[in-house]
């Protein structure tokens, strides 16, 4: 919504400065988006007269002017190339040092073909007033007595344009008068009374019949359509003052009667339409369109209707969309003699929907979709009539009104102490009353509960909270005193995070502590990627994705991370360790959303360090790097990974032989880890080997509520004893089975079993391997005798043989 300062002052009697007006608008919820003060750019330009014009001695197309720039002062010499420069011309002068907005040049003192120019005579284009560059500005010779004065002042161009960002709840402020009313209520002046209109009601009946044609009488789409006929107009250009204002707010002047409709739209938030009555056939009506009707809009584009749109039609055809766009065929031109003015009410929602479907944004739609004042149909018609008579003459008919204005009085029971209860702001009753009345509310009753009726132009008012808002915004939210929020429990703050939230936090910091870098990647990925990672169900596909790369809710964090890995490789980082802790989706229900902590190590990005180093060769990160990540992360989250089962059934996006799943029982999957399948790398276009893990934080069992005190430390002074064993095993035997068997040989005595060597090849044969373990015996009560040690050693050998078929390596 744009208007000029002088336009505002048509409605508002005020002494406030532009800055005060801006501050007040911001305060009361009419946020100022910008103020364009044309006088700022043109401030340095003055009226000047050419006293003498002679041909330039060295150039055919240039003249040397003697210019009077201040009365009674010596003239200055100016070189000018304009064909219309002549002795006696009164124009606009820019002195040296001035910035010329149209050319972007600052004037400097320098000779033009040997003659120094001490300034410049300006064209309109050079001042960015128009595209006119046929010559320099050529003012009325009578302006000669204004020489030396500022051009903007003399021409009245110094009228700042204010643009406000109107929130959708304020249709009343789509008109300058509504803005003025708000400012007056906020103490910035008084709202001027409306002039009484004379001579608008004619003596002959409206010759065009106006009808509402809605089957069953459901006329919510257009409950009221008022019109008046004016015969014998002379439709030239509108007066200069009107054109100037329209231009200032970005409206193109068309002709006198159309300009009046546009003017009232901005002045009052009351859109109108005007028809060339001689182009209408029969009656004019509002009705719902049938699917497939067409018309040519005033904007030169053709539109086809569907059966939900409200249109205006005559006996022959659809003329335009009601409340959005009129038709070209029945529009007015300079030769129009007889007109019909339309002043109607169109339903906000239907207007918005039609506008959206047709892809049209107009000033009329902007106002109707917010809800114009239903009580201002007849007054609006009268104002339009008066102004059209003023600018185009003619004789008006009586008005014709189809339907009834949909005025519904909204009355609210309101107690003034609501303001303090909701705002914590004490406003005296008299001020509450003054504010509401200044905004047009009617207050009835003796209190403490009043009956408050909202003005017809405020469809946004529904209840007490709305009234509190009116009082608060006019008082200014900055006047609300801050009040400390009382502590809920008093004393020291209690912990607020849930176990799940703590896990997320801890997971992030654990993985960062393991040298990985946290990324945040999109929740939606390509459909093909989602399918590869076990997702891509119809229920997780967006109906309106923003690009083909973001179509489907991700089933895993890995595709996004892999894509990120490759982007970094393209930037020259060969070895990348990224992680993300975030949500992924198994379905569209809340319970289907889960939190995963996933990481990728690509190239030689290992825990010990990334890439090549003088102190040892860094191999590519592999399954045991990510297994370490997964196990450490679980450990950090309070879960002993040794309690989980490791199974070889990681999903297909992993290397089938070098990946695993960590489970808790047959159903609960805690994590997957391993090297990625070459097909996965190929799909994501990743050019390096990569290993990954993904842990499902929701799958972890809830942390047991332990007592704060830890159990006593169980330690003895007896030295532990270690014994090493090397077993020859079939290659397929799992190390974990060997460890488990050894551990189980004597649960009381064996404190730990470590795998310290793995050997394959040599003379073992292709299908065998040798696994060496260190068994630690921790006596609890007395030092072990050689016999006791020997007995345990035998048990270990026997248990491992029984469980795995392994034999002690000879």
């Amino acid at each position: 919504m744009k208007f000029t300062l002088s336009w505002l002052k048509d409605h508002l009697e005020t002494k406030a400065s532009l800055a005060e007006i801006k501050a007040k608008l911001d305060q009361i919820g009419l946020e100022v988006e910008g103020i364009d003060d044309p006088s700022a750019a043109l401030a340095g330009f003055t009226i000047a007269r050419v006293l003498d014009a002679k041909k330039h001695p060295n150039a055919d197309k240039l003249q040397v002017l003697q210019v009077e720039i201040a009365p009674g002062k010596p003239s200055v010499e100016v070189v000018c190339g304009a064909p219309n420069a002549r002795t006696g011309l009164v124009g606009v002068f820019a002195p040296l040092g001035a910035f010329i907005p149209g050319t972007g040049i600052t004037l400097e003192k320098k000779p033009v073909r040997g003659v120094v120019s001490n300034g410049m005579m300006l064209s309109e284009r050079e001042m960015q007033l128009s595209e006119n560059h046929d010559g320099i500005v050529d003012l009325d010779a009578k302006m000669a007595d204004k020489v030396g004065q500022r051009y903007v002042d003399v021409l009245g161009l110094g009228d700042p344009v204010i643009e406000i960002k109107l929130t959708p709840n304020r249709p009343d402020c789509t008109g300058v008068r509504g803005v003025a009313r708000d400012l007056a209520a906020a103490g910035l002046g008084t709202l001027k009374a409306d002039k009484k209109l004379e001579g608008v009601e004619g003596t002959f009946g409206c010759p065009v019949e106006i009808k509402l044609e809605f089957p069953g009488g459901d006329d919510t789409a257009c409950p009221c359509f008022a019109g008046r006929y004016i015969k014998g107009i002379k439709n030239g250009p509108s007066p200069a003052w009107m054109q100037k204002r329209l231009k200032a707010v970005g409206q193109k002047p068309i002709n006198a009667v159309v300009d009046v409709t546009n003017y009232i739209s901005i002045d009052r938030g009351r859109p109108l339409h005007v028809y060339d009555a001689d182009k209408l056939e029969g009656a004019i009506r509002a009705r719902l369109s049938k699917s497939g009707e067409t018309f040519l809009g005033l904007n030169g584009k053709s539109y086809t209707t569907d059966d939900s749109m409200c249109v205006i039609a005559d006996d022959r055809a659809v003329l335009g969309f009601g409340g959005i766009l009129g038709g070209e065929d029945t529009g007015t031109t300079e030769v129009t003699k007889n007109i019909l003015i339309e002043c109607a009410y169109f339903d906000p929602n239907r207007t918005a929907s039609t506008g959206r479907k047709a892809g049209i944004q107009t000033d009329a739609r902007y106002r109707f979709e917010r809800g114009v004042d239903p009580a201002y149909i007849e007054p609006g018609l009268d104002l339009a009539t008066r102004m059209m008579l003023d600018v185009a003459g003619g004789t008006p008919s009586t008005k014709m009104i189809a339907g009834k204005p949909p005025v519904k009085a909204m009355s609210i029971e309101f107690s003034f102490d609501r303001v303090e209860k909701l705002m914590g702001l004490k406003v005296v009753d008299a001020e509450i009353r003054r504010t509401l009345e200044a905004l047009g509310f009617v207050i009835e009753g003796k209190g403490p509960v009043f009956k408050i009726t909202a003005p017809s132009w405020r469809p946004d008012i529904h209840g007490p909270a709305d009234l509190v808002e009116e009082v608060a915004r006019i008082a200014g939210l900055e006047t609300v005193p801050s009040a400390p929020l009382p502590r809920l429990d008093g004393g020291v703050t209690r912990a607020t995070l849930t176990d799940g939230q703590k896990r997320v936090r801890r997971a992030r910091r654990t993985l960062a502590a393991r040298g990985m870098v946290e990324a945040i990647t999109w929740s939606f990925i390509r459909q093909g990627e989602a399918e590869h990672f076990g997702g891509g169900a119809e229920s997780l596909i967006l109906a309106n994705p923003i690009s083909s790369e973001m179509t489907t809710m991700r089933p895993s964090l890995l595709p996004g991370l892999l894509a990120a890995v490759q982007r970094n490789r393209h930037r020259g980082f060969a070895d990348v360790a990224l992680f993300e802790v975030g949500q992924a989706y198994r379905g569209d229900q809340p319970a289907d959303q889960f939190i995963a902590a996933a990481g990728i190590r690509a190239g030689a990005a290992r825990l010990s360090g990334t890439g090549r180093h003088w102190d040892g060769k860094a191999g590519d990160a592999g399954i045991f790097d990510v297994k370490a990540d997964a196990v450490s992360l679980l450990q950090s989250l309070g879960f002993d990974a040794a309690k989980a089962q490791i199974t070889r059934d990681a999903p297909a996006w992993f290397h089938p032989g070098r990946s695993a799943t960590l489970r808790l029982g047959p159903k609960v999957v805690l994590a997957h880890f391993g090297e990625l399948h070459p097909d996965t790398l190929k799909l994501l276009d990743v050019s390096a080997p990569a290993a990954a893990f993904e842990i499902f934080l929701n799958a972890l069992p809830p942390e047991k509520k332990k007592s704060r005190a830890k159990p006593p430390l169980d330690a003895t002074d007896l030295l532990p004893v270690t014994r090493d064993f090397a077993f020859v095993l079939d290659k397929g035997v799992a190390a974990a089975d060997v460890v488990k068997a050894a551990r189980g040989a004597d649960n009381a005595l064996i404190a730990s079993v470590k795998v310290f060597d793995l050997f394959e090849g040599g003379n073992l044969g292709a299908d065998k391997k040798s696994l060496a373990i260190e068994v630690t015996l921790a006596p609890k009560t007395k030092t072990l005798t050689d016999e006791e040690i020997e007995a345990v050693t035998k048990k270990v050998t026997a248990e491992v043989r029984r469980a795995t078929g392994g034999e002690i390596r000879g």
Partner: protein
Amino acid sequence: MAGADLGALETELLGEIASAADLAGIEQVRVAALGKKGRVSELMATLGKMAPDERKSFGAAINQVKTKVSDALDARKALLDKAATAAKLAAERADVTLPVRPGPMGEGRIHPVSQVFDEIAEIFADMGFRIAEGPDIETDDLNFTRLNIPPEHPARQMHDTFYLKTPGTSLTGEKAPFVLRTHTSPVQIRTMMNQKPPIRIIAPGRVYRMDSDATHTPMFHQIEGLVIDETTHFGHMKWCLEEFCKAFFEVDQVKMRFRASHFPFTEPSAEVDVGAEAIGKPGQWLEILGCGMVHPKVIANCGLDPEKYQGWAFGMGLDRITMLKYGIPDLRDMFNADLRWLRHYGFSAFDVPTLAGGMST
């Protein structure tokens, strides 16, 4: 043997000791002098055949020589030991300028948005706010309708909101379109429906809008706050947001401006600007959040009595305040996973924000 000869022997042996060049040389001298068949030992052996008087005087003299030689041997040996160690250590000299690996603590980073989330949680925890969460996929009922955003509202159009292909079921059992939540406000609804006041929550999370340009990304982060009880009012909200801004931007004073505005789910509503001196740029205002008193219809939509309960809510862009605080110029970089950017703007795992230690220090 005469005393003069003993003196000569002593001189000779001490000379040999002094000239021994290494530990082996010393050992040779020791064996030759004090070994079983050493010259001093052999003289000792002659004592037995001597007369008692002679034995006494010669014995004392020879013991004196023995002691002197033995001491000299020890001293020389210690000296040579030290020299040998020094030589060994000299040979073990390392190039101390060789670089070491930065180690995982030097390589790892926390994303700035995660860091700021932890900061915010810490600050609001002190004011008694829990963290509430909700799903990204919501029905339009929770994302819009119950928040008093009517079906014809522009925000519900396909060019603003991501819709899923298949509809879901609303809480009341009707078929309802699924959307990706466009704000964290549905968490307000879920909280009010499931918890009796008093309520104090913040709800951070991902939100989605169909926007992609220099200052918008189709996914970003918001943080929502909600307080509901029987008396809490706009003044409490103002205080709370002022305290938050001071704690978050780590300044003693912060200028804030509450401008009246409009949101369907709050009444009255305000937009809030912060004086940019808080981030070292005096003279500007920066819009950081929207807030207001929860609309009575929204309270009623959650099954609470709006005549009994009132409250306030706010929502701000988590990415935006992260950018403001840490001088990050471009929103799009937040989701680009560029290692250079993450290393530069990211945080160490040890940078855990606490009230005692400060948010960023």
